C-alpha cells in the first residue's frame, strides 16, 4: 500500500545527508568536548562549528546559542530560567492562549510559585493583537513569550511588532520558533527577539537536540547543574552527534528553504482548496495567508477527527487531529477553542503538515480518498442528517 506521511509538524525524517554527517561522531570523533586532550578538543571543535552555523543562520553570535535536548527543554528552560533570574525585577509574564504546552505548563507551574501570567486571547485566525500585548504590560512584567507560528493551525504571529513593543518597555521577548526554524527566515534582530527556542527534529535533523538563542547579557537561572557546560547554564555532556546533525540540518535549510517555501505553499493551497471544494461543510482553521507554508488545518462538520484519522491511516495517509478523543485529557485542542471553534468543529479537525518530500501526487491521493471517508462517517453520524434537514449548518 502507498504510504504518505503528512505529519511533518510532529516530526520529520532525518535527512540522509544529516545522518551521514552525524555518523563519524558516534565512533570516530567520540571524545568529550570538555576534555583537554586531542580527542576532546576534536569534539569541542565540531560542537563550536555547529554553534557557529546555527548562530549565523539567525543573525546571532555563537556565544548567544545554548544547546539543549530539544524544543520542550528550550521552552521550559527559558520560561523558568528567566522568571527565576528576574524575580527581583517583577513577577509578571505575558504569553498567549495558543502556545505549545511546553510554554503553557511551565507558566502554570510558575503561577503556583506566585508568578502572575497573562494569557492573551487570539482572534478567529489565531492572531495575537500587538495592542493587547502593549496593554498587558505593567511595571512587574519581566517576560513576553509569543510563538512564531502555531503548530496546530500554522498562523504566523506579528513577531517583529510585538518585539518592538517589548523593547520599548524594557521587557525580554521570547519566541517559540520550533515550527519556523529552518522553514521561514528568522533574524533575531529583524524580529526584535531576545530569546528563541528551536528543535532539531522539525527540520530534518535528529531528535533530542535543540537550541536557545539568548541575547548577550541576558541572565537565566541554570536548567541543569553539574559540569558547567554551556557557560554553566546547561550542564550535561554535549550530545555531539545530535549537535553536528542540527548544524548540518541548518546548512541544508539555508540552501533549500527558499525553494521549499514556494513548493510547499503551492501544494498547501491546492490541498486546502481541494478539501473545501470537495467536502461540503468543511472550513479552514487558521489564517489563509499568514500561515506556515506546510500547514493545512480543516474542520469537517458532523464527523469526528480520530475516526477520520484512523480511516486515513488505513489508506496509508498519516495526519493528526485536534479532537478530544485523541488527547490524553479528553479536551479538544486549546488552540481550536481559543480561535472560537465550537466543540463539535474542534472535534472534527484534521491537520495535514507537508514536508520536503511531499509531491503533487500525494496531495491528489489525499483528495481522492478523503471525501469517501467523510461520506462513510457522515452516513453513520446522527448529527449529519438532522443538521442538514433543519438547515442550521455551520
Amino acid at each position, binding site marked *: 500500500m502507498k504510504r504518505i506521511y503528512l505529519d511533518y509538524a510532529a516530526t520529520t525524517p532525518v535527512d540522509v545527508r544529516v545522518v551521514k554527517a552525524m555518523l563519524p561522531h558516534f565512533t570516530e570523533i567520540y571524545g568529550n568536548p570538555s576534555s583537554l586532550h586531542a580527542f576532546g578538543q576534536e569534539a569541542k571543535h565540531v560542537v563550536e562549528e555547529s554553534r557557529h552555523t546555527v548562530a549565523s543562520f539567525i543573525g546571532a553570535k555563537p556565544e548567544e546559542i545554548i544547546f539543549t535536548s530539544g524544543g520542550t527543554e528550550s521552552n521550559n528552560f527559558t520560561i523558568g530560567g528567566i522568571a527565576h533570574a528576574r524575580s527581583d525585577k517583577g513577577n509578571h509574564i505575558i504569553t498567549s492562549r495558543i502556545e505549545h504546552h511546553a510554554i503553557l505548563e511551565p507558566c502554570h507551574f510558575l503561577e503556583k510559585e506566585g508568578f502572575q501570567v497573562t494569557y492573551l486571547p487570539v482572534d478567529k485566525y489565531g492572531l495575537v493583537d500587538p495592542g493587547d500585548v502593549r496593554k498587558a504590560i505593567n511595571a512587574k512584567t519581566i517576560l513576553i513569550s509569543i510563538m512564531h507560528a502555531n503548530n496546530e493551525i500554522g498562523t504566523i504571529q506579528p513577531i517583529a511588532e510585538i518585539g518592538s513593543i517589548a523593547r520599548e518597555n524594557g521587557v525580554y521577548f521570547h519566541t517559540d520558533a520550533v515550527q519556523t526554524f529552518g522553514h521561514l527566515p528568522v533574524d533575531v534582530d529583524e524580529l526584535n527577539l531576545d530569546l528563541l527556542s528551536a528543535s532539531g527534529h522539525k527540520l530534518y535533523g535528529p531528535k533530542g537536540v535543540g537550541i536557545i538563542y539568548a541575547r548577550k547579557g541576558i541572565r537565566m537561572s541554570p536548567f541543569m547543574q553539574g559540569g558547567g557546560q554551556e557557560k554553566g547554564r546547561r550542564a550535561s555532556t554535549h550530545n555531539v552527534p545530535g549537535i553536528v546533525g542540527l548544524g548540518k540540518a541548518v546548512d541544508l535549510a539555508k540552501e533549500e528553504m527558499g525553494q521549499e517555501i514556494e513548493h510547499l505553499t503551492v501544494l498547501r493551497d491546492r490541498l486546502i482548496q481541494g478539501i473545501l471544494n470537495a467536502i461540503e461543510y468543511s472550513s479552514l482553521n487558521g489564517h489563509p495567508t499568514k500561515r506556515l507554508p506546510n500547514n493545512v488545518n480543516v474542520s469537517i462538520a458532523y*464527523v*469526528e477527527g480520530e*475516526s477520520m484519522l*484512523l480511516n486515513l491511516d488505513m489508506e496509508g495517509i498519516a495526519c493528526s487531529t485536534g479532537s478530544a*478523543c485523541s488527547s490524553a485529557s*479528553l479536551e479538544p485542542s486549546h488552540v481550536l477553542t481559543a480561535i472560537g471553534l465550537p*466543540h*463539535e468543529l474542534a472535534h472534527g479537525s484534521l491537520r495535514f503538515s507537508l514536508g520536503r518530500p511531499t509531491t503533487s501526487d500525494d496531495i491528489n491521493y489525499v483528495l481522492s480518498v478523503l471525501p469517501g471517508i467523510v461520506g462513510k462517517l457522515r452516513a*453513520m453520524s*446522527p448529527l449529519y442528517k438532522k443538521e442538514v434537514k433543519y438547515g442550521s449548518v455551520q
Partner: protein
Amino acid sequence: MEAYSEKVMEHFRNPRNVGEIENPDGIGKVGNPVCGDIMELYIKVKDNVITDAKFKTFGCGAAIATSSMVTELVKGKTVDEAMKVSNRAVAEALGGLPPIKMHCSVLAEEALKKALDDYQRRTVKKLSGKAA
C-alpha cells in the same frame, strides 16, 4: 497514544448494524457534541426478544466499535438479558479498550439501557392504553 486491539479495529473498519430502524420499539440517545461522542441506538423487540438493533454514532474509533459491538451482543437476547449487558462486557468482547477510552463503552451501555427503558415505557403505555 495506546493503539486499539485488532477486534476494535475490525469493528471500526466494518461496523455492524449501522443505520436507523423504522418504527423502532425503543430508542436510546446519549452523549452530546461538546464531549465528542453521540450515540443513537434503535431496537426492535418481538415477544420480549430483541430481533434487530441498529446504531448511528458520531465519535472516535472506540465509540464506533463499541456501538457496533453492543448491537451485536444484544441481538437475539431477551429484554431482561440485554439489561444485564454491561460496559465491561462490551469492552471485553472487543478484546479490551485503552483505559482512556473506557468511557466509550460506558456510553454504549447507557445507550442500550435508554433504548430498553424506552421500550418498556412504550410497552406500559400501550398496555395501559388498551386497558383504558
